[in-house]
């Protein structure tokens, strides 16, 4: 069976756990603890190790969905899973103090994933904070990763349809990039 590891990263409170729950066809495995950092995200619990969900596609493929803890002190988990991953769903909550800076930090950490797979950026909580608009995110992505096309969407992590759109776009982009690379190799 082929495994496809997709990571869900982003700052605390961006909706990583919820996004996995929206997509997973199994009950998600969660590793949560009491949130002691209410200033960053006003929620009762937060992920400390990882969240896990999966989608099985026939007998051949399994999509493993891993949610990474948003806090830096757990970033050893990032490295472990980063090596196995082919794609990243980067969630950024628009109501954060400086969401563009959050985008910068996570792209710096996980940007290389675009080389071996792909990245999609999901901007959450735009209903609470409509600004910055997603073209600002897209512009920033272009600045940080020139020449690479990373989809940027607004999304409600609770909305399964929207999260499916994000996931499918990520996979479409990964496959198309691979197809173009293969074509160029053959042409060379």
């Amino acid at each position, binding site marked *: 069976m082929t495994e496809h590891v997709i990571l869900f990263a982003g700052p605390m409170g961006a909706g990583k756990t919820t996004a996995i729950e929206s997509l997973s066809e199994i009950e998600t495995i969660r590793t949560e603890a009491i949130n002691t950092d209410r200033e960053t995200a006003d929620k009762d619990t937060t992920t400390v190790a990882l969240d896990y969900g999966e989608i099985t596609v026939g007998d051949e493929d399994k999509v493993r969905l891993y949610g990474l803890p948003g806090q830096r002190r757990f970033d050893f988990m990032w490295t472990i899973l980063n090596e196995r991953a082919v794609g990243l769903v980067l969630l950024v909550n628009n109501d954060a103090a400086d969401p563009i800076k959050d985008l910068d930090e996570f792209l710096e950490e996980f940007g290389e994933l675009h080389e071996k797979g792909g990245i999609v950026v999901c901007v959450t909580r735009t209903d609470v904070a409509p600004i910055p608009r997603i073209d600002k995110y897209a512009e920033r992505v272009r600045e940080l990763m020139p020449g690479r096309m990373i989809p*940027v969407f607004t999304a409600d992590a609770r909305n399964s349809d929207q999260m499916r759109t994000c996931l499918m776009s990520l996979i479409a982009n990964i496959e198309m990039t691979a197809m173009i690379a293969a074509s160029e190799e053959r042409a060379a």
Partner: protein
Amino acid sequence: MVSMTKARHSLGLVGLSPIECAKIAMFIETEAEAAGCPWLVLHSDSCDALIVPSDVEFTADPYQVLIRLVRYNGAPTGGLAITAPVNAPDLIDILSQAQEQLGKRQVPAQAGPSLRVKMEDMETVPANDHYDARSYFGAQASHMTNGSAALKADPYAYASHEEHLSSQPSAMATPAPQPAFQPFPGSQASHSPQPAHNPATHAGHDAHGEFCAAWDQIAVALYSIVQNSAPAVAEIRIENLDMIRIDFRFRAYNSRIPLEHVSANGSRIAIRSTLVEAFRPPIVNLPGESLDKLFWFIGSQAFHGMGAPWMKPEDRYRLRRWPNFTELNHAVADMRAAAAIGNCFLNAAELSAAAGITPEAATRTLNAYSLMGLLEIQTDRTAAPVVFAPPPERASGGLFSKLRSKLGL
């Protein structure tokens, strides 16, 4: 591009075909500014100068300069005139003359181009866009109040319309199940719902002539406004109701009904646009809907699956950014198309091959992206095209295809 700060006068295009409008807008964008002849092009009859076909009855206000477009060996007219097909030198020459005439007139000092649409009327818009279905714009001038700005989407304004109607299935002729909302009780439109499929998705999308034709000029008008970059607001009226309000400053719109339920009778759709100072309050309830959603909808409807008049078939295009699919009415195939054109420059044929969609769907996609301002253009004709060869795993179906089936998309 003509900017707000450089434009001295506004030019209204009234009763012209989409192609004529697009050509004039393009000439002005590329030539007029360089020739020291800056104009702001709008689809309005309330501009400083107007270009109106010579065979259309039209009376300009005293403050306006009227330029007649003489089509197909038509009789010459008095005053300023330009002959079809329009070419850039003639257009620049005639605009210079118009500019000279305007310069000699006593006009109130204004910061920018004038457009005499009263913003306060937007709340109680008079019934001034009510036209007979078979008459050209301007023939029913008595129905218009002073200062209105309207562009009528007249199916008889361009010759190819009948062909499209006969060659393409019509939503009007094949009613689909009625949507719950009935926007125009008792009207023809209320018995002519849009097709059951999503009209604003591209892949596998059937064109339906009347519906498409109604949006051609709207698309050109919106493209013109966006290209001019001036702060503007607009109102699309269908069946004499202000159905869609647009505030370009906030890239937002409000619609009375979901776009999927918008029913457009080709003879009763109009757009009113006006410039607005940046400090004026928005005419939409913010945050409103994203303008991309409206442009995606209209771009996919217009031009009958042919390229928009401002696009060149020999050019290649690439996405500047992905469209925000979570807010667009999209098909799964649209994601593949975005992935393809997001990673390399493609024309419609190449996009069709890369994304596995029909050439018509590829063209509609490009039209929509272009209207949304998402495309960058490669004009280098010598650039080698990307030849797509599917990777080995695609033969048994890639993960995308498998997930698509799994998720029932």
